[in-house]
């Protein structure tokens, strides 16, 4: 059965950042230089070809974009300046919008105005909600205690509610991702055993990012790891130790030391990435989509408002600390509510999932009849 070519798809992907893919003439240098490219997941050339030809189903079922960490070597090697690295990045954006059943992701990636508008709106509503809540049950002059403006016990409930909602959306999108990339493909039979024996890959990839470490340049991996671990630390602290975090003004070193380390990691990481993008220091930082800027700016603002809040709180200026807390929450909530399931943040889930799926799918592929495995030379690249 012949596959129908759709020349219009590259127009759609252009909005997601794949502006140069039509320049590719398939020399295959990009696939040759990539350390992650190996059978059966050979990329970026093949993904670029599917995109040029508009083979939407193949693209949607591809895990390759998530196996790329965008070290930028392929783009530097490309004789046609077709930006294979940025194309893979654009495909990740596009895939995110395809996995998301709500359509919000698609809306955000296609229009930064909508995205910024939504963040401002949610931020405004959050601020309004917490102010009303604070004034209704506490005093703005109290940060801690029974009369606290925003008591940590209540906030904790809110945090967990939000987290569960986000998790639900993310999981439903992840299920769609599994369906497109593994479940739907009738030609691959993945045994249940593989899903279980390979399950360790999920936390392993998530925490160590060992694939990223294989890239020739180690600095981006290290920066990314520090940023991710800091974020993770902060998440754990907030989800499980919020009351300790909010205690004070005395510093509880057993908990707070992790908070300080994570804060330093978040500031250093986001500032470094912002600097790289501003300076366009190497290939992977040359093209910055609006979603990339928003991701880093929000992260930095969240960190800075958190720091300010903490300083004010520990200095005993409770009114200012409370106001800063509201400001902090009105940035954190839209960041988590909108960016984690629908924006660039979602890659923290999709990337380890893709590596897990890729390995189990590869096991399924080896069980296929040898005759159906493409043997022609050109197919390999």
């Amino acid at each position, binding site marked *: 059965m012949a596959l129908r070519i759709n020349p219009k798809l590259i127009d759609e992907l252009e909005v997601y950042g794949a502006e140069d893919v039509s320049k590719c003439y398939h020399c295959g240098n990009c696939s040759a230089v990539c350390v992650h490219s190996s059978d059966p997941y050979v990329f970026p050339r093949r993904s670029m070809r*599917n995109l040029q030809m508009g083979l939407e189903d193949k693209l949607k079922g591809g895990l390759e974009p998530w196996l790329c960490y965008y070290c930028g070597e392929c783009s530097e090697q490309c004789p046609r300046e077709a930006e294979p690295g940025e194309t893979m990045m654009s495909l990740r954006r596009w895939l995110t919008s395809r996995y998301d059943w709500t359509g919000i992701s698609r809306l955000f990636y296609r229009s930064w105005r909508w995205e910024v508008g939504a963040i401002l709106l949610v931020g405004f509503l959050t601020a309004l909600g917490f102010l009303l809540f604070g004034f209704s049950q506490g005093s703005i002059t109290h940060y801690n205690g029974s009369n606290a403006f925003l008591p940590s016990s209540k906030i904790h409930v809110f945090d967990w509610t939000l987290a569960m909602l986000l998790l639900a959306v993310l999981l439903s999108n992840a299920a769609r991702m599994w369906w497109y990339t593994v479940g739907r493909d009738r030609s691959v039979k993945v045994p249940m055993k593989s899903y279980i024996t390979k399950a360790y890959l999920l936390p392993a990839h998530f925490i160590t990012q060992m694939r990223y470490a294989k890239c020739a340049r180690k600095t981006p991996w290290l920066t990314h790891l520090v940023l991710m671990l800091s974020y993770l630390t902060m998440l754990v602290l907030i989800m499980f130790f919020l009351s300790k975090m909010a205690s004070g003004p005395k510093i509880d070193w057993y908990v707070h030391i992790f908070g300080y380390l994570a804060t330093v990691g978040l500031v250093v990481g986001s500032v470094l990435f912002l600097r790289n993008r501003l300076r366009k220091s190497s290939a992977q930082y040359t093209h910055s989509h609006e979603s990339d800027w928003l991701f880093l700016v929000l992260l930095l603002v969240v960190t800075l408002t958190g720091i300010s809040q903490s300083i004010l709180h520990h200095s005993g200026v409770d009114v200012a600390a409370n106001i800063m807390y509201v400001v902090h929450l009105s940035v954190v909530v839209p960041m988590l509510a909108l960016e984690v399931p629908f924006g660039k943040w979602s890659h923290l889930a999709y990337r380890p999932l893709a590596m897990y799926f890729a390995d189990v799918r590869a096991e399924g592929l080896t069980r296929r009849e040898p005759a159906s495995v493409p043997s022609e030379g050109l197919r390999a690249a």
Partner: protein
Amino acid sequence: MEEPRIGVYVCNCGTNIAKVVDCDAVAEFAAKLPGVVVARSYKYMCSNPGQEMIVQDIEEQSLERVVVAACSPRMHEQTFRRALETAGLNPYLFEMANIREQCSWVHDDGAIATEKAQALVHAAVNRVARHEPLERMSVDMCPNTLVIGGGIAGMTAALELADAGKRVYLVEKQDHLGGNIARVDLTAPYLDSARDILTYLVTRVLEHDNIEVMTESRVERLDGFVGNFKATLGSLANAADGNAAVDVGSVIVCTGYKEFDAARITHYGYGKLPNVITSFELERMLRQGRIETKEGRPPQFVAIVHCVGSRSEEYHSYCSRVCCMTALKYAHEVKSALPKSYVSDVYVDMHAFGKGCEDFYRQSSEVKTLFLMYGRGEHPVIRKADPGDECGMLIEVNELLSGETVEIPADLVILMVGMEPREDVDDVAHLVSISTDKDGWFIESHPKLDPVATTTDGIFIAGACQAPKDIPDTVAQARAAAARILARIARGKLVVDAVYAEVDEDRCSGCRVCNELCPYVAIEYDETKRRSHIISALCKACGACVAACPSGAIKARHFTDEQIFAEIEGVLE
């Protein structure tokens, strides 16, 4: 017969000959042969001291014949003939024995090789004793030129000659000048207007005092030989106009090409599917400024199919050279006329070899042309799409860069038809006595060293009638042909080699066997005398007629029976 005084020189060619052949022994052997008065062995006979040695011996020893045993006569026969001339001896009183290519280079055994070299020298000495002094002939060079074909090659060559003050007769079959370029809109890769190029050339040609343009005309006959042709020109429009005869010294054939008939490939549906068109049909649309389907709508999906009739075992095995860049030109022109359209370029290999072409290929990618590669020998299949589909046709092809069988949507399909020789190519070849290759293109004298001359002296070829080529190559070839002709005109006279065949009219029976046989059409039949006659200027001394003549009436100068028999005896003795 009184023995002439012969000098024999054995060249060592450094060690090329001397390391196998004992050159001194050969010289000693030669010294004892009848008539030999001097025999020497020397390191390099072709060097200045070597040549001077011959000149000095001729003068001091009163030599009448010279033999040099060295390399192939192709290499240095002319060198030693000039040495003889310098010393005042007729250059044809010379013979070369090839003891390098045919002896030292092919033998290991020194003793046997030396013996063979002695036999060859013996043959040469026997032969040279029977050489006769021959005089080279010189013929007049008529400064007029006949150019056949009024396309870009013909007009360019005509202008080059006319600007140098020479008269040109430009014969064109059609009622206007321009050839195939007159059917084209823009040119690749710089997107210059073909019309501008053409207007400039046509205006200059028509206004030029030295060019006589004859449209709707053809060359009926071409008689004579290099420097002295007589062309009979006839009108195609009006037979009553009668024929005109003109004298020309040279002829340039610039008859160009015609396009491949796309209907020959049935699965492209050309002639059946209304929106499958050829490249020239698209050119017409482009020149009219409107790209549309037969239904009168601008196409959303445009597909360009390469190598239609070219690079295929079934049709033409050669590459037509201009289609790839022309296809990219279409991608640009379609995209600029219809920015919302999608162009698919279905190619086999992208041949972007010319100046500026690789950049042009890159630019075509930048305007989002979708390049789809198919295998040589495979054929895309074009069919009508289902009603209700967003496109009018679908092209099915095994796409190599993805390894998938795909369907390409198309509303307008452009077939890049290749070039092929014109129908009347054999008539033209016969008219001017030149040959065609297996594909029907005219054969040049030498593909690298002499690409504009032919094996018939005075007949030149330029442009796509020699092989498919683009405009820059055509113009270069046309100017090169003109330059070759101008160089001959500047010399005024043509020197013809003294070695040619002659008919002894007393012995000729007029059977005309030789007339048909001569590959250079150098033999005429004189109706009044009823005898054959060889035009010495055209004869290349191949000897075919000499061997074939049943009456033994033809003698090849410098290759007489007596000379050859003496040579054979020399080898055998």
